[in-house]
């Protein structure tokens, strides 16, 4: 009997201890006096969970530091792989395990809405300082679902020692300049190896007038726009410059190979995003808009990154305060930029602190002739078919029939 009592007591103590530990945060909450009307916010004891990726963690941490200092609330940053955030957010928000806020790309929006996991947001007092393109990208069916903070687009990067700093106007001009420079390869582009990379190739595709989805007054419909003569002309161009033709496009080049070739001076021109600049330490380069191959403007996809609020957040009030008062401010936007330089989507951010300030201007110019990446959920089904068809054509498959089959299969998959 005696040891049973002892056991019971031990059990009760351990339970109490744990209970005390878990409720410790709540216990220290100060109750603010109701008459207080000052604007100082006291949210001590509240925790805001934010998902960020590795690159942006320092940036968000800097913005969150001010918030923590001024409000007493705690911001818990959960670092995740950027590629995983979309699927995890979709899976975990409905279970209540999701974050209050997550970093995300605008092209996830359709899927997030379809999945019912995002809430609408307000931009706060500084709403007019956000770039309109970025706000439009975060808008879906007339509703704003995310607070944008950066945009990004790929651009032409050229080795200034080989081909100077002047932007070539067309593909042919670029190749001519590349050949004249004596570089081993006039031009390199990442095809993600055998997989194909429709994203990096897209500016050339749009220069033939073959958008991935038909656009209806700015927003994308779910009708595939890559068919017809324009699409066929682009497919033929891929073939002509592929392994069976001039060889400027090759499926042997993946992201790392491409960067290595450019950094060793073997390539005169390449197409990459701002994220690759860190790899180009051994060469002098400049960034320009992408030249046209098909006559029309070469429009890269413009991606917008921003913050989404979970539709199931239990801290919606705090989350909105954090975004509108502590992210949508010039100081926080500057901190985000300094932590991880991407083209800012907020007026007045000083970009001179970037490692390559003049490159930022080049990317900005490229983004200005870009088109927003489609955010409709159908986009998720496109990549597999699209990348594979481009890869096959570059490797020498019949361009017309391969491209046509891709369009047919993709349309069928979207309807199915």
């Amino acid at each position, binding site marked *: 009997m005696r040891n049973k009592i002892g056991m019971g007591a*031990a059990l009760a103590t351990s*339970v109490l201890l744990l209970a005390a530990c878990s409720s410790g945060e709540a216990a220290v909450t100060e109750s603010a006096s109701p008459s207080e009307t000052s604007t100082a916010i006291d949210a001590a004891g509240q925790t805001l969970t934010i998902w960020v990726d590795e690159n942006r963690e320092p940036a968000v941490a800097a913005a969150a530091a001010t918030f923590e200092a001024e409000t007493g609330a705690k911001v818990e940053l959960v670092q995740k792989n950027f590629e995983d955030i979309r699927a995890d957010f979709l899976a975990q928000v409905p279970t209540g395990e999701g974050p209050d806020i997550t970093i995300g790309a605008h092209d996830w929006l359709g899927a997030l809405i379809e999945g019912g996991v995002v809430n609408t947001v307000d931009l706060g007092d500084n709403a007019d300082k956000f770039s309109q393109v970025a706000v439009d990208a975060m808008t879906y069916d007339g509703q704003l679902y995310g607070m944008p903070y950066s945009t990004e687009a790929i651009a032409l990067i050229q080795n200034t020692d080989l081909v100077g700093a002047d932007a070539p106007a067309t593909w042919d001009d670029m190749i001519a300049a590349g050949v004249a420079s004596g570089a081993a390869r006039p031009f390199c582009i990442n095809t993600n190896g055998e997989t194909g990379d429709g994203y990096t190739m897209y500016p050339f595709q749009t220069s033939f007038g073959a958008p991935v989805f038909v656009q209806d007054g700015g927003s994308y419909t779910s009708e595939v726009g890559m068919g017809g003569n324009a699409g066929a002309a682009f497919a033929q161009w891929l073939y002509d410059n592929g392994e069976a033709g001039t060889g400027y496009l*090759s499926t042997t080049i993946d992201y790392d190979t491409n960067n290595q070739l450019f950094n060793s001076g073997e390539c005169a021109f390449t197409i990459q995003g701002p994220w690759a600049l860190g790899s180009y330490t051994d060469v002098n380069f400049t960034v320009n808009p992408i030249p046209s191959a098909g006559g029309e403007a070469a429009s890269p996809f413009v991606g917008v990154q921003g913050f989404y609020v979970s539709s199931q957040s239990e801290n919606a009030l705090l989350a909105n305060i954090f975004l509108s008062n502590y992210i949508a401010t010039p100081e926080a936007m500057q901190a985000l930029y300094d932590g991880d330089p991407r083209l800012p989507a907020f007026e007045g951010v000083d970009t001179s602190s970037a490692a390559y300030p003049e490159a930022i201007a080049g990317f900005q110019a490229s983004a200005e002739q870009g088109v927003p990446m489609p955010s409709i959920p159908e986009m998720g089904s496109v990549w*597999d078919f699209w990348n594979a068809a481009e890869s096959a054509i570059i490797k020498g498959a019949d361009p017309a029939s391969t491209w046509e089959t891709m369009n047919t299969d993709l349309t069928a998959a979207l309807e199915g």
Partner: protein
Amino acid sequence: MSSETLTEKPMRVSHARNWRGFGWGFVAKLLLMMVVNAFGVTALLTAWSAEQWTFLIAGAVLLLVADVVYFSRRTVPLKYILPGLVFLLIFQVFTMGYTAYVATTNYGAGHNVTMQQAVDAALIQDERQVDGSPVYPLTVVTSGDTLGFAVTIDGVVLAGSADEPLQAIDGGVADASGRPTSVPGWDIVSVNTLLSDQALAQRVIDLRVAVSDDANDGALRTRDANSASVYRSSLVWDEATTTLTNTDTGVVYTPNEYGTFIGDDGSSLPVGFYVNVGAENFVKAVTDKDYATPLLRIAAWTFAFAFLTVASSFLLGLLFALIYNDERVKGRAVLRTLFILPYAFPAFMSALLWRGMLNAEFGVVNQWFFFGAGINWLGDPVLAKLAVLFVNLWLSYPYWFLVCTGALQSLPSETAEAAKLDGAGRWRMFRSITFPLLMVSTAPLAIASFAFNFNNFTIIYMLTNGGPRFADASVPLGHTDILISAIYQISGIAGGRADYGLASALSIVVFVVVGIVSAIAFRQTRKLEEIQ
């Protein structure tokens, strides 16, 4: 006789009389059980607060069973097998059961949430800011239990609640920005109060205060308790009929059997919920005609891949084990360590490295061994299969080298000596003595290795990603895809258009196939054991 004297002693003496302390064993048990109970009770509390009743009940039962088993004197065998049973339940039975459950739903893109959550999301997506609505500085107010909003419009302080539209408040005072600072009849609630009271904050977020008696004029809503705008909502949820009605257009949205809200004009809402679809996923998994042919080819390759990998790596490992087990080889310890290196490397890293080395233009394989011939190892259907097999051989032969070395060293030397005395040659000895004895201990491992390689997603995903694609199929599958990587592709998880229901159904089909193959193979290995 001694046993008799023992039984004559009174065995059941009260602990109070012969108590000599608990002993270290008991103390250790008590401490362990304290930890177990502490974690268990925390888990139960968490489950309680998260309203996860299934987990709460299951957890409570498990905890109770654990306590009974370890503090009862009658359950000695259970004390040993309980931890294993619990692990089996949690990590095998639960996972399989859950996969089977998901396989009967259409959980995936567009059917991601429960009906209630889908309705919430539809209402969120429908509520729009009224065009041109200014942003009003806001004060949250209460009157008794009633929560309200106070704003200043045209210099007049107004207040209202969920039931009462905004009305002018006599004697209301606002500061320079227009934020009401004194509202007679109402108590002002500071933002800080809201922040420290999550339930109240939620009520503020949910509160809509109509701006006038006409509901079409919209209602004030706030997200940050600091400013408000006029929003208008046109969807109304009727829980009794489970329909959403658009009050502007009169369209009634009714959920169909797949959990999508379909309007009576044929339109649909973007957000849907998951429902039980019975065996539909299984039917689709085996009958979809676009997938049938590619999947059959993939199944054949999967069997070939798993079998050839095990056979080749086993034979190579065995060969090296035999050679390096010979006492005449000098420096065997060092050599053996070197052999194990590929095995010590993370498989996905090796696969990535090989992907680079097999690159047609820049890869060292072509440059060093094929005079820069530009052979497209990963782009040709046959060569890609060979490359996958070769890389997997490189990855897995050290395992068999290890296993076979161990098995060889534990073979009884008497049998070998007896055979030698009988005049058996080296080959005869290997064929009749060494190899059969070796098979007894390695065959079950070979079956396990087969099952592992059958689902060896890593190497396929990292080395070829399933490519090159089938040129004659309308689905994005390729020549080196094995069933598990095909499932990953079909279920759309990579592209973000996931269909977890179909993926679960397919993986159950694969599980059944692997299970049957393993069962048959294990039955065969019993014959081997008869040798001993």
